[in-house]
């Protein structure tokens, strides 16, 4: 996957969530991890990549195609990709199965039968086959995230965008979800994720970007950023979060 970002900015009122970002990654990067302090711009950058927000200026190109700026183009863009947020991804009034079937039928135009078959297949693969008929409230946080991940993966997304997918989970549930994400990454799923799981970023990402105050402080391979951080900000951050 190639990602080219030029002069990207996004402000919310007087807050500069993304403050002039330039980045370029070539095809070798399949998994990109965004790390850094909370409020540093990770979520906003993910949403800009996924067409959930419109930038104030600058451009994002993925595999040569610019992320659209109009609502209709963005919707088509979002349909090509898969999104997973920290929590509350699922629709509480629908069962796990219906949660996965809904976008396949309504956003992708599949028949209901094909969508159900596909949903079962993905959920089986994710080891959640017994939970298809349950509503989100009957599932643990980790199970909910795995169903939400199944929904994000069901249509074969060009790009999987994960926004701190394990931040709301306890350690054991975290591992359940991260194992699955790692498996997907290894199977070649192109992924951009923001995360506080440094071990995961270091072990699974081909490239790492450190964002703080809306700017790129450092970027490079996982080994470069974690092994030999150049900036004091990154050193201090990693020193703190890796200490425990």
């Amino acid at each position: 996957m190639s990602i080219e970002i030029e002069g990207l900015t996004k402000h919310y009122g007087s807050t500069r969530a993304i403050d002039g970002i330039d980045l370029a990654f070539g095809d070798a990067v399949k998994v990109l991890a965004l790390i850094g302090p909370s409020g540093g711009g990770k979520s906003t950058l993910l949403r800009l990549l996924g067409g959930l927000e419109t930038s104030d200026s600058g451009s994002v190109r993925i595999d040569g195609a610019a992320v659209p700026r109009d609502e209709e183009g963005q919707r088509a863009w979002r349909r090509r990709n898969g999104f997973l947020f920290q929590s509350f991804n699922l629709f509480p009034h629908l069962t796990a199965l219906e949660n996965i079937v809904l976008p396949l039928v309504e956003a992708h135009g599949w028949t209901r039968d094909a969508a159900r078959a596909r949903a079962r297949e993905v959920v089986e693969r994710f080891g959640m086959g017994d939970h298809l008929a349950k509503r989100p409230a009957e599932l643990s946080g980790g199970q909910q995230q795995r169903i939400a991940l199944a929904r994000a993966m069901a249509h074969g997304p060009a790009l999987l965008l994960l926004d701190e997918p394990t931040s709301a989970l306890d350690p054991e549930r975290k591992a359940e979800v991260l194992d699955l994400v790692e498996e997907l990454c290894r199977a070649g799923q192109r992924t951009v994720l923001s995360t506080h799981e440094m071990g995961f970023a270091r072990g699974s990402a081909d490239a790492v970007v450190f964002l703080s105050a809306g700017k790129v402080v450092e970027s490079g391979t996982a080994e470069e950023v974690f092994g030999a951080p150049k900036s004091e900000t990154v050193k201090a951050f990693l020193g703190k979060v890796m200490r425990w």
Partner: protein
Amino acid sequence: MWKTTLSVFVSVVLLATFSFVVWVVASHDYRWEALAPYWKNLLSGWGTTLLISVLALVLSVLVGVLLTAGQLSGHRLPAFLCRVYVEFIRGTPLLTQILIGYYLVADAVGWHSRFGVGLVVLSCFSGAYLSEIFRGGIESVPASQWLSARAIGLTGAQTYRFVVVPQAVRRVLPASAGQFANLIKDSSLLFVISVHEFTMQAREANANTYATFEAYLPLIVGYFLLTFPISLLSRRLERRYRYEH
């Protein structure tokens, strides 16, 4: 401990009051025979109230949905106009609205159906309340649900249809049921334009016989027969739409 004390206290007060009221009402000396010639009128009045209530219920939901749509449209002018409408209708007496609606507005356009005008005014009145209930229900669906719907590529209309409305329905059911019961009872004000509904018939029976309680007591049974099923239905629907645990 204090919970038990409170529930015992509330139960005792309610039971005592209820028994006292029933005893007082039951021990009154009634002259039911005076009402005999008016039973038929009362029954036909009840039928009129039933008909106008059912029609106004449907029409007021329509008015409520339109007002909600206007307020949530994101366009300033319709949102402002709907807001003004809702505040004005809710803040002024229904009685006056019915009078103005029939004797001034409907008259000006040459419409003289008391039933029709009454139905429309009642629906416009109740619709204003319903729109606030609907708006509250829709706005109570968390932002994360809208975001999720956007992320999976649903259009705005699909988001409402598949995500927001099904979740809002359950939240608005109890308040809507209350408003429907109000609507049924409010229809009694249509006597000011001589719609021969239930209360109007009771008033006439009373005026002719001076048997006040005999004329008005049937209203208790009649209106309760209309409002209680709504309450039951609402509870049933609530259970059906329940998904949290």
